[in-house]
């Protein structure tokens, strides 16, 4: 991994995989959408609203996964001072916030017809709302300083403190009484979901994952260019 801490090596590798990631994103999302909307049956209890699951659940997985990546990148930036790790954490944050927003809004649109409420203050929903605010806080903090290094450090510490929220979200449905249903895919005894519904779910999750990688590569490229611009301007100003 240390080899890729070098920005120009990273750029070469990233540019090589970028078109593959973008192409696979389109393919997986197209197949996922087909099975989610046409090729899967309605649920025997929830009818057609179950189709909301195929975006709600993958976006929830991504909300947690991207936060984990952001925290891991922040940790390696704080500990080993990898020059790229800060840029990766900063680039991941808006994507994670986007997935969390999708999760919250689609959950609301699913909750209204099935629970009779757009929103309830229960453990699962509230802890995911806190995750959304952690993302927003990170984005605000990382951009709040004139010296980007100070922003990276402050926001990186916030990202690490916020990691405590991840197990709370995951186990909230087991620890507290909640309206939200417990896990049906990521269980110790294997998925308790019919393959006809599992496949579209996994295809959409794969599509979201590759979307994340594609947009992350683009954003890191932008951050590398921005850092080079800052350095050039500094050296020009010094003469």
């Amino acid at each position, binding site marked *: 991994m240390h080899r890729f801490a070098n920005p120009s090596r990273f750029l070469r590798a990233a540019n090589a995989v970028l078109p593959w990631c973008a192409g696979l994103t389109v393919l997986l999302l197209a197949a996922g959408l087909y099975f989610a909307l046409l090729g899967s049956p309605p649920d025997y209890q929830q009818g057609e609203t179950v*189709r*909301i699951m195929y975006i709600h659940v993958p*976006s929830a997985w991504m909300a947690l996964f991207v936060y984990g990546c952001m925290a891991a990148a922040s940790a390696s930036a704080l500990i080993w001072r990898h020059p790229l790790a800060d840029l990766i954490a900063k680039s991941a944050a808006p994507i994670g916030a986007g997935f969390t927003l*999708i999760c919250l809004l689609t959950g609301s*649109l*699913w909750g209204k017809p099935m629970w009779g409420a757009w929103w309830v203050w229960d453990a699962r929903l509230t802890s995911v709302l806190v995750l959304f605010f952690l993302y927003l806080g990170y984005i605000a903090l990382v951009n709040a300083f004139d010296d980007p290094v100070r922003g990276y450090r402050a926001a990186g510490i916030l990202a690490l403190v916020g990691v405590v929220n991840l197990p709370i979200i995951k186990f909230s449905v087991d620890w507290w009484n909640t309206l939200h249903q417990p896990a049906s895919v990521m269980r110790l005894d294997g998925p308790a979901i019919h393959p006809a519904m599992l496949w579209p779910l996994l295809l959409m999750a794969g599509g979201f994952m590759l*979307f994340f990688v594609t947009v992350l590569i*683009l954003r890191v490229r932008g951050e590398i*260019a921005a850092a080079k*611009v800052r350095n050039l301007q500094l050296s020009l100003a010094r003469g």
Partner: protein
Amino acid sequence: MDRLGEFLAMGGYGGYVWAAYLIAAAVLAALLIASLHSVRGQEARLAALRQSRRSIAEDDA
């Protein structure tokens, strides 16, 4: 036509299902467009700055 209408109605939940898919598409598209816009902007600034530095170096020479 009936089958399309039935598909769009989603068993009476069409409003909720399609709103969810539209919101997801809108958020992902906004992320992609904003990211493309910023990476192009930054790389163009970098290229312009390098160009101007090269011309300063040539003037000095």
